């Protein structure tokens, strides 16, 4: 019997597969395709203090082995999410990770204080790494001092564990990881998208209306694996790995790198059944490599 379960701060996961924030909305569309109870957890679309339209279109561009997006955190704001999305999510027996974003430090605190009241939310994912907004986002997540400060404020406001989602667009990811750990983070999620760009040869102009966007998909997987591996050896808090996961084998690679669980992002767009397929394939992959649980795989690449 293969044990897929993972126990993390605030998150009792029946398996390590969590659809990534921004790639799954609030689950409604995917609930038309499969039973969301199959999932280890769900990282819901970012909640911001106010309603946000986001960036102009085009917001999407395909790339070799991946895609660029510049959505710009479109959502109806935390109050709407509290009233309309969370009550609907309450029907599922799968823990919800609330991604929190804002343009100021106070904004993060405001969203967290409101979400504290929802029993549906089991933990927060502090989004200090969105590359597609002018304020907040990656501006905070690429500087250890600023990252630590907003993490400390978030942890003080939060009545649930706080996972900090880090940006890969930095020189020393481990320094940021250590800074947010010291500031009180209960866990890390890494990585967010890599800043990228495409130019239309016919017009000579960027394809995305926002000019630049976040690169995701299998193209970024080796970067993500490397960063999880670096951070796992630098901190003592659990890591949720994310970046280009397509198959159960990729999950195992992230576990070996030091992740305790994973998020699946852009693959949900290419194959809407990606998460349940990975979950059903995972036991056989673990067996193939002589494992009987997810837990024993975590960190194998560097553990003595």
């Amino acid at each position, binding site marked *: 019997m293969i044990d897929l379960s993972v126990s993390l701060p605030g998150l009792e996961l029946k398996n390590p597969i969590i659809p990534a924030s921004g790639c799954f909305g609030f689950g409604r569309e*995917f609930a038309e395709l499969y039973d969301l109870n199959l999932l280890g957890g769900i990282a819901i679309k970012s909640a911001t203090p106010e309603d946000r*339209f986001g960036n102009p279109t085009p917001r*999407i561009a395909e790339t070799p082995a991946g895609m660029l*997006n510049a959505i710009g955190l479109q959502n109806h704001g935390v109050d709407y999410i509290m009233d309309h999305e969370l009550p609907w999510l309450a029907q599922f027996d799968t823990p919800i990770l609330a991604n929190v974003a804002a343009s100021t430090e106070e904004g993060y605190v405001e969203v967290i204080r409101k979400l504290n009241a929802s029993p549906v939310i089991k933990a927060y994912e502090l989004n200090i790494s969105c590359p597609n907004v002018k304020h907040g986002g990656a501006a905070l997540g690429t500087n250890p001092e600023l990252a630590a400060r907003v993490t400390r404020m978030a942890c003080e406001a939060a009545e649930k564990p706080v996972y900090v989602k880090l940006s890969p667009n930095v020189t020393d990811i481990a320094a940021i990881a250590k800074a947010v750990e010291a500031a009180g983070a209960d866990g890390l999620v890494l990585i967010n998208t890599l800043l990228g760009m495409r130019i239309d040869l016919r017009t000579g102009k960027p394809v995305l209306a926002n000019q630049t966007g976040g690169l995701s998909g299998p193209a970024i997987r080796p970067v993500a694996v490397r960063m999880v591996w670096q951070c796992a050896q630098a901190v003592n808090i659990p890591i949720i790995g994310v970046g280009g996961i397509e198959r159960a084998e990729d999950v195992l690679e992230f576990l070996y790198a030091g992740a305790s669980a994973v998020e699946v992002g852009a693959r949900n767009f*290419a194959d809407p059944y990606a998460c349940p397929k990975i979950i059903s394939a995972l036991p056989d992959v673990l067996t193939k490599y002589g494992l009987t649980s997810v837990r024993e795989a975590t960190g194998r690449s560097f553990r003595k």
Partner: protein
Amino acid sequence: MRTAAAVIVSNEMIARDIYRMVLKTDLGQEVTCGQFVQVAVPGYFLRRPISVHRAYEDKLSLIYRIAGDGTRTMSTLKAGETVDLFGPLGSGFPLLDEDVTLIGGGVGVPPLVETAFRYIQAGYRVTAVLGFSDKDVLICRDELEELGCQVVIATMDGSAGYQGTVLDAIEQADVPVKTVLACGPLPMLKAVAARYDGYISLEERMACGIGACMGCVIRTPDGDSRRICKDGPVFRIGEVEL
């Protein structure tokens, strides 16, 4: 809405850079006119959203233009090969209780063919005004005529039908227009929406195709937004800001 492996029955060029792919699948039974499917093209990360040209019991017909590397690769796929489809997706055109005028531009014309078929089958009269850049990219005229539509053609260079836009052709041919169902390039849709009432079908770069990623949104006059893939691609004229 589901994924389905479909065997290619044929995949042939029907006009300059425009191909028709016929697929063996029972997805067609679930399709309403104006909906689209997402086609997984081997070697490309995202699926290609392609509107349904015709839906049959055991087949789907898609017409697409080579717009980039992905659709170019799609055009090289051979009969007998299998592709993965996801669909049907989106809202589709409503089946109104009246005669309609279809207005199509370029590769916006194909979804209007299934639409014409359904209106004619229900006993309504359908006029189709189709605009193209030139005669070499003129598609779907013969089959719309065979279905029983009155077809009016416009080409920008005058190489077929009336010279000018679809609106020029409507004026010159004195086509009576009440309710329009339109699909085509944005400038055409803007011009149509400024003059008539009815429904338009939009396109945009999209990722998920089901309304989850917020990649293809468009604003509404009241400051809200709609997802082209899920709430559209067909919208009532005036519902969204063009």
